[in-house]
């Protein structure tokens, strides 16, 4: 829950209103212009209706240089950001890539093995897993992942987004109920919609509200017929990528056990990044993995590869392998990527013979906590729990989005800014992702630059320490 200061809310609304008015003005003048020109698509309805992409044309296109910035090197801690319309690139500190453990670039243990597997198995198998797409590397990968996560078996697909979209319809269909957190990722929403089950939402990270919703729904039954539900699945995420918060898993699991609902945990951002040995939110919060029925995750963030996995009981995985469309119809995950994941897991667990894995895990925890503490001391409004490597800094005002981003880029720091529709309209933010490959000097430089940009744009909403924080009056709660 984020409370927005009253004055800021008013000024943000005013800014959006102004932008909207200017946008409408330009639309009208475009209409007059278009009357003169001819359209060669007579009889066809316009493929994009005028009001559908109003936001894109009139608001997003003004600041589109802050997004989709191309880079010309590996997404490591320092990255070459290409200037648009030229071939020049500038070396910037990378605070935007999901490179939590630093596997995003050439790694001394992983990359030689990946190249070896490339030479042996080639870039792709051109076949689905059931036909001729399962190689020995895939079999090894699934075992490795299952061991790492702490479940009996696992199934791996080539894309994290498609994992959710393809697995949820197999597990639940019409007559079932999906209760998902209000801030869940689009892939979960897509999968839930595609399954045909009824969807209900509970307040973000509030186990008490979840219990209320569960009780109500079980007592009422299916809509209109009031028959009892076939099954109920509660979907939560480990770390929420736009808030940086860690899920309150122990309470949620106890509530679900009480009401006999199944728990589906999406650990896209938390696997490999939190917990003592990087095993995710279950390890951090001390939840037994046998209590979580389905554990899902992706390999893009902490392992520097691509793909997603589902881990569960042996029966569940066997059933999924027989029915999941991503397993039956889609090309299997590329073999070198699979090898990268195996090598990365070996490094994290220390099985490669060095202690780089433990070092990386300790470093990311240290870095995240240090950075967050410093930002809060400077007076920024930073969201997220301790230990989480994702740090959103609130901007609110639409004009501050490009200002902050461009100012940081001028000082050679690459940050990510997010606005509507990924976040609610008023709650635009800049999101920092800390990596284990950032050194202390990098972080200090980043702090200096962010502080300067923050002063220029006026986003230090809290008074800086060591002054005591005064009572905030007239705040509007927005959740």
């Amino acid at each position: 829950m984020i409370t927005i200061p009253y004055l800021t809310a008013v000024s943000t609304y005013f800014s959006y209103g102004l932008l909207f008015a200017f946008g409408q003005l330009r639309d009208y003048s475009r209409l007059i212009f278009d009357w003169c020109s001819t359209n060669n698509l007579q009889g066809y309805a316009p493929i994009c209706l005028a009001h559908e992409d109003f936001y894109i044309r009139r608001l997003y296109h003004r600041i589109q240089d802050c997004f989709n910035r191309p880079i010309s090197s590996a997404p490591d801690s320092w990255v070459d950001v290409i200037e648009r319309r030229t071939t020049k690139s500038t070396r910037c500190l990378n605070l935007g890539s999901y490179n939590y453990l630093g596997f995003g670039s050439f790694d001394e243990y992983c990359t030689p093995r990946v190249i070896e597997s490339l030479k042996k198995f080639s870039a792709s198998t051109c076949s689905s897993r059931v036909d001729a797409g399962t190689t020995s590397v895939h079999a090894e990968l699934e075992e490795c992942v299952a061991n790492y996560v702490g479940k009996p078996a696992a199934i791996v697909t080539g894309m994290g987004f498609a994992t959710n979209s393809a697995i949820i319809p197999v597990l639940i269909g019409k007559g079932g109920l999906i209760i998902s957190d209000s801030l869940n990722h689009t892939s979960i929403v897509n999968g839930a919609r595609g399954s045909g089950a009824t969807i209900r939402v509970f307040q973000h990270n509030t186990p008490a509200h979840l219990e209320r919703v569960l009780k109500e729904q079980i007592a009422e039954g299916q809509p209109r017929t009031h028959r009892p539900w076939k099954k109920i699945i509660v979907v939560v995420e480990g770390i929420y990528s736009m808030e940086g918060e860690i899920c309150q898993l122990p309470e949620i699991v106890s509530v679900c056990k009480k009401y006999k609902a199944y728990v589906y945990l999406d650990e896209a951002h938390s696997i490999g990044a939190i917990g003592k040995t990087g095993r995710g939110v279950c390890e951090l919060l001390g939840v037994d993995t046998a209590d979580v029925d389905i554990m899902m995750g992706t390999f893009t963030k902490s392992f520097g590869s691509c793909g997603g996995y589902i881990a569960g009981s042996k029966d569940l995985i066997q059933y999924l392998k027989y029915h999941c469309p991503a397993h039956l119809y889609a090309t299997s995950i590329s073999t070198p990527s699979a090898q990268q994941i195996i090598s990365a897991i070996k490094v994290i667990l220390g099985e490669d013979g060095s202690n780089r894995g433990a070092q990386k895990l300790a470093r990311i925890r240290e870095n995240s906590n240090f950075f967050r503490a410093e930002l809060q001391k400077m007076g920024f409004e930073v969201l997220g729990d301790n230990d989480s490597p994702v740090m959103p800094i609130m901007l609110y005002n639409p004009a501050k989005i490009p200002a902050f981003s461009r100012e940081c880029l001028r000082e050679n720091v690459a940050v990510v800014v997010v606005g509507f529709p990924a976040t609610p309209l008023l709650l635009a933010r800049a999101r920092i992702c800390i990596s284990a490959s950032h050194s202390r000097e990098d972080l200090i430089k980043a702090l200096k630059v962010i502080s300067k940009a923050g002063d220029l744009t006026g986003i230090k909403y809290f008074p800086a320490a060591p002054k005591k924080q005064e009572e905030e009056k007239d705040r509007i709660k927005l959740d």
Partner: protein
Amino acid sequence: MFGLLVLFFFSYRFLTFKILVVVKFESQSFASPLLWANDISCSKSTRISSNSLAALCSIHRAKMDTNLVEMFRAGLNWVTMALDAPSARVVLFGVRIQWHIFVEVLLGFVIVILLSQKSYKPPKRPLTEQEIDELCDEWVPEPLIPPITEDMMHEPPVLESAAGPHTTVNGKDVVNFASANYLGLIGHQKLLESCTSALEKYGVGSCGPRGFYGTIDVHLDCETRISKFLSTPDTILYSYGLSTMFSTIPCFCKKGDIIVADEGVHWGIQNGLQLSRSTIVYFKHNDMDSLRSTLEKIMTKNKRSKNLRRYIVAEAVYQNSGQIAPLDEIVKLKEKYKFRVILDESNSFGVLGRSGRGLAEHHGVPIEKIDVVTAAMGHALATEGGFCTGNARIIDYQRLSSSGYVFSASLPPYLASAAITAIDVIDQNPELLVKMKHNIALLWKGLKDIKGMSLASDPESPIVFLKLEKSSGSTKEDLLLLEKMADRALKEDSLLVVSSKKSFLDKCRLPVGIKLLVSAGHSESDLVKVSESLKRLASELLL
């Protein structure tokens, strides 16, 4: 109840008037009945009708002479006297108050009271806490998955080397007809070189979605290369083949739009159609007459709304049956009925056409006529991912609204560089296409007289599909039989072939069979071997 009352009111009004006239006429205790009739109602028509009524009554009177009638008349007389007595001489506002006005006023009151009463609703009693707890306790959910049966335990073959035309399974060398490696680019030297240099420079993953520093220059180069190859204005890259279609379709098709799709499209397209929430009409697989009649029906049924978008969705080479879509006819129909075409060229990109530019070149149709072309790169290009190409407006729109592009990490850079190299190889080596076409022709010749199965795919498609001639009635039985055939082919003859597999989510009802994916890397002996083996197995298992 209320209606009955109103009916009664008006019928009473009319009846009393009629009765009154008769009674007055009969009793002769007042002045002329005609005058009375005038008093009661002031309209001309009733005067006339009272005249006729009077005439009628005289005739009646002459005829009726029974006891019953006498009694009836006496009763009416009494009623009128009783009702009229108290107010015989009252005049209010210049109108003489008659007895019937009281009855009417009373009826009016009753109507008003009935109207003002609330209709009967059973009282609402929400469940108490205790009842809710009891319900929660006694609810028993279904198990998460149904019990595992024997056929679900089937394990696929595990490869120990690259999935080229020859591969290794369990230490044995096996001829591979199960990889969609149509031009034999798996293991090609140039591809491996470009991948290796990309891996050394960029690492494996791209660590972010396209919007947040996940756009690497290889992605942009790949998009430009594909656009140049197909001569289209712009291209957008997706990181997964299956997600290409189910992200593109919901972008352009929203609730209320109409989509006409072939009934044999694969699961990715079906999922996209479902997510788009538009009205979907299926036409018979690859049947142009069925398509024409469907389009005709739609255009006559729906009046042309200005904002209603209409699409035809088809695949160039159908994954489920190996048929090739007749693009020239589809384009003719599209222009006649003003539909847009979304075409999936996964299995035809790099395969059909003189230089491998796909179905449009194969049929001689300019590519601008197809509105949206998508393809998965996991087939002829021997890499992973997918792309979508079309005019600039369409591609630009997808960069912000396509869920599989915006909310997902981008393609690993080494796969994008593999795609660029693969397209270069196709451009520079047109003899690969010739060899592949030659192989397909040879395989057709070899499988021409197979018993128990028939060739159901197009003679030019790289997917050679053998469907069962006699189905056993249940799809499950057929699938088990085909699986057995494929297993025996692997064990006895060292051949990898594809037997159809169906998920319960797949709505396609086309016949199942064995699929052979022909590659330019297969030699003649391979093709002969597979034809012999399949003929033998078909005669053993199917007859």
